[in-house]
């Protein structure tokens, strides 16, 4: 192995060259924990945490270096940048191109992994085509004749690191979330019988994801991709004593294998299309430059899309994701926030030119990616309505949010998609860990209806952080989710004044619906968990500091991270320093370097933010949240126990009288509502309010609530559990039955075997003689 790119540039940070340490540290920790973990006082957790802390520090340093370099390169200046010359390889940059052309060019360090055959040693071996006659080392001309594939055989595969905004962003997110998950886990899985094993795989999981993030070649990407899958298999099935858990692990793995076919085929197509290269850089460059035909890119993109669908839980390959909740909650947090499921989205970003050109994203109005993303975000959101299990609500919410990211990328809103990935990581991790904390308190139940309720009094910290996470997820300004969601909606280019890469009307509608729905189902979950009366058995208690501290950190991140990408108009309006606008875009988006989409035909544009859209979308979310809130409120008012068994409207009327009686002496709010609903005797105001309530609010609540519940249930029962699972099961059982049939042919009789052998030989030869 030798360094392909050894030249050291002065501007070149030590960190860029040694970024491989970041995945290597947790990988080493995995080995160490496996061998020595059991003998250590903390059963190996300390090694894992030490490794991840170091990796995190390195990742932070790398991030700051990267940001510093971007700043040095003068993000908004008109000059050319010194950054051009550095990097593992010289990066071809068109200096005549417009401003900011080279900002954020990737820094690639590659070493040869292995190679096969060089032209030189082939030439000495050349002989005649069928290999008789001249001994080896003969004439050169026969060589060319027989060894027409000599160049192809001179084949080498490189392994390397790829540092750019996108990968640095992921390095930060993965190490950050992983670190918090590690700390959280020391409490959460404390006393588990496979504690050491758990931490070992947590380390390996992190290492695999980091390895994948830093891939410089498609082959490396595949390896990382599969490694992530393997680790998730081990972690989801961590509590394998329960049959459901091991089944879920298997299901996750096998569903991913289905998508992997797409990945392998897609990558193979790209390999040949890019003149037999695995280099992501080469592939991207050729895709941008039009050296690969659009049709080829389209097929490749479709194949890769299948991989994204399975890994990132897009419809219709999402079914493994909710089942994967069987794993320990911190693992779910890691899977949903930073690793595994975002791998698909990350891969789209990494090979964005392939998708951008292949799907003709520029100037389009709908494409496969946007459609799948749209379908997923609406479908996932609907499904989240009907879950009893708090983790499943969050899981379907992840499905929905991943759909949002894919939707964004499908509409050409690269930065918006990546930004949403970034913000989502924090608040989703916060929510998952919060759910874990809740279940920790409720004796390891995740059933919101049976075992929760009213927890806000018992677990103030968890409640507060969960609320912040919910608000962020629902897109309430000024929390993180608002900014990224807003950018996605703007990116559709539909709203007046926003100029996106096309006019994606249908995806935009999907996006708006989802924005409303997200707020609604999260409100439902929050109500069921934290409001009303506690329905569990014993008194719940707040979790310990190792659980709450990560929650607080994540919640504060969920508040802050959104400000990294404020629109410039907003910044101006508030008279903030101008440099505060679009920071994330500056740091992460490789603004126009040759490896990214930039050429004329595939021009990549940014949408213009719109204040009116932000207001409307926020109003939608708040309104939807309010409706649901109102609905549960009223339900509760009728009967505090109602939430326990109610799912629809049907059970609302009968317990009315009983509810009335019970509520009399309860909360002030209940009194008010009871009065409003039942009274109607407190003057015209009350009467008017009552009328409004009865006819408008009630109708609205009824309509929205029942529609989404019915739709959600329908999709859950028939499509999710029926059609999709049914199809998967049916194809499985068909294969199985076919196997049984073929197995019957193996009768154990030699005579039959011999008949088959001679018979098949005869038939095959006859076919080839007479038919071919």
């Amino acid at each position: 192995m030798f360094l392909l790119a050894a030249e050291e540039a002065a501007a070149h940070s030590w960190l860029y060259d040694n970024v491989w340490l970041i995945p290597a540290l947790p990988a080493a920790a995995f080995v160490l924990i496996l061998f020595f973990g059991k003998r250590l006082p903390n059963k190996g957790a300390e090694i894992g945490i030490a490794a991840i802390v170091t990796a995190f520090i390195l990742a932070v340093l790398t991030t700051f270096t990267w940001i510093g370099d971007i700043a040095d390169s003068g993000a908004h200046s008109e000059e050319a940048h010194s950054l051009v010359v550095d990097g593992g390889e010289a990066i071809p940059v068109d200096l005549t191109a417009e401003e900011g052309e080279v900002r954020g060019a990737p820094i690639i360090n590659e070493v040869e992994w292995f190679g096969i055959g060089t032209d030189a040693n082939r030439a000495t071996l050349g002989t005649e085509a069928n290999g008789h006659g001249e001994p080896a080392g003969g004439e050169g001309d026969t060589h060319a004749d027989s060894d027409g594939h000599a160049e192809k055989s001179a084949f080498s595969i490189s392994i390397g690191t790829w540092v750019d905004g996108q990968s640095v962003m992921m390095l930060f997110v993965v190490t950050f979330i992983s670190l918090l998950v590690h700390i959280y886990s020391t409490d959460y899985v404390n006393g588990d019988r496979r504690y050491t094993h758990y931490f070992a795989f947590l380390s390996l999981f992190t290492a695999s994801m980091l390895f994948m993030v830093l891939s410089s070649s498609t082959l490396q990407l595949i390896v990382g991709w599969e490694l992530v899958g393997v680790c998730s298999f081990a972690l989801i099935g961590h509590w394998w004593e329960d049959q459901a858990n091991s089944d879920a692990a298997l299901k996750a793995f096998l569903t991913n294998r289905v998508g992997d076919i797409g990945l392998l085929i897609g990558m193979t197509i790209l390999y040949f299309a890019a003149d037999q290269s695995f280099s992501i850089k080469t592939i991207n460059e050729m895709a941008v430059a039009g050296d690969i035909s659009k049709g080829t890119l389209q097929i490749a993109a479709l194949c890769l899309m299948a991989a994204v669908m399975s890994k990132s839980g897009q419809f219709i390959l999402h079914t493994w994701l909710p089942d994967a909740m069987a794993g320990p909650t911190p693992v779910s947090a890691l899977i949903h926030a930073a690793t595994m499921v975002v791998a698909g989205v990350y891969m789209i970003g990494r090979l964005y030119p392939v998708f951008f050109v292949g799907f003709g994203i520029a100037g389009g109005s709908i494409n496969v990616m946007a459609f799948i993303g749209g379908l997923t975000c609406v479908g996932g959101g609907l499904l989240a309505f009907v879950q009893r299990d708090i983790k499943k609500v969050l899981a379907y919410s992840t499905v929905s949010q991943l759909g949002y990211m894919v939707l964004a990328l499908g509409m050409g809103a690269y930065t918006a998609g990546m930004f949403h990935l970034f913000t989502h990581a924090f608040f989703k991790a916060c929510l998952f860990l919060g759910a874990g904390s809740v279940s920790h308190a409720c004796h390891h139940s995740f059933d919101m209806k049976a075992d929760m309720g009213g927890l806000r009094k018992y677990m103030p910290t968890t409640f507060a952080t969960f609320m912040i996470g919910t608000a962020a997820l629902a897109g309430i300004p000024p929390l993180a989710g608002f900014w990224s969601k807003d950018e996605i909606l703007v990116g559709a280019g539909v709203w007046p004044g926003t100029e996106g890469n096309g006019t994606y009307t249908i995806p935009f509608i999907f996006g708006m619906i989802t924005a409303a729905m997200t707020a609604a189902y999260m409100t439902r979950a929050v109500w069921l968990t934290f409001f009303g009366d506690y329905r569990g058995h014993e008194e719940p208690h707040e979790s310990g500091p190792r659980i709450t501290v990560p929650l607080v950190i994540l919640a504060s991140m969920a508040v802050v991270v959104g400000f990294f990408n404020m629109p410039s108009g907003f910044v101006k309006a508030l008279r903030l320093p101008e440099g505060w606008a679009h920071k994330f875009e500056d740091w992460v988006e490789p603004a126009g370097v040759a490896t990214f989409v930039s050429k004329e035909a595939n021009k990549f544009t940014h949408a213009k933010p719109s204040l009116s859209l932000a207001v409307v979308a926020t109003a939608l979310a708040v309104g939807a949240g309010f409706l649901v809130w109102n609905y549960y409120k009223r339900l509760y008012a009728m009967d505090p126990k109602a939430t326990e068994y109610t799912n629809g409207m049907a059970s609302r009327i009968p317990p009315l009288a009983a509810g009335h009686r019970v509520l009399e002496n309860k909360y002030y709010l209940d009194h008010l509502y009871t009065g409003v609903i039942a009274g109607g005797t407190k003057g015209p105001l009350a009467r008017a309010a009552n009328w409004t309530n009865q006819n408008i609010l009630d109708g609205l609540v009824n309509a929205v609530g029942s529609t989404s519940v019915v739709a959600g249930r329908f999709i859950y029962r028939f499509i999710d559990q029926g059609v999709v699972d049914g199809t998967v099961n049916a194809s499985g059982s068909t294969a199985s039955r076919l196997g049984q049939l073929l197995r019957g042919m193996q009768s154990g009789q030699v005579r039959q075997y011999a008949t088959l052998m001679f018979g098949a030989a005869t038939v095959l030869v006859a076919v080839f003689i007479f038919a071919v």
Partner: protein
Amino acid sequence: MTYLVLQTQLTDTGEWIANIFFYIIAAVAIVAALRMVTTNNVVHASLYLLVVLSAVAATYVILGAEFAAATQILVYLGAIMVLLLFGVMLTRAKIGAETDLDHDQKWIGALVAASLGAVMGYSLWEGFGDVRMPADQVPQRTEAVADEIFSTYIVPFEALSVLLLAALIGAVVVARRD
């Protein structure tokens, strides 16, 4: 006698005589082979096999492969047949007709054999329709065969010796009574 047959091939009459010899031998071989696979008596079957093997040896003589013919007689008739008869006796086969020698549904076997024969026959007919054997054929000398074996085919020859040794060791282990 070999020499005689081949000498006479040089004339038309000679070829006629050789042909007559051949067809008689072939007819005997085919009839004996058919009886071998259909008879109800194991001992008879082995005797029919004896006839086929002898007829094949005679065919080698007509083709001028004297050494192969001699080996055929020595190895097959002298060794393999004796081995098979031992097998018949050690497994206590009845002397006389038996009823349970064949599978039911012999037609499947017949069908496969017939279609295989048809495919082979068609291929050979298409390939060598009226190709004649060379007229100036001389017997292949044993000495030349020996030279060939000990030069070109020395590797398979040595491998064969290992094979026979291994078969010997293995067969003794497998067949002996513990």
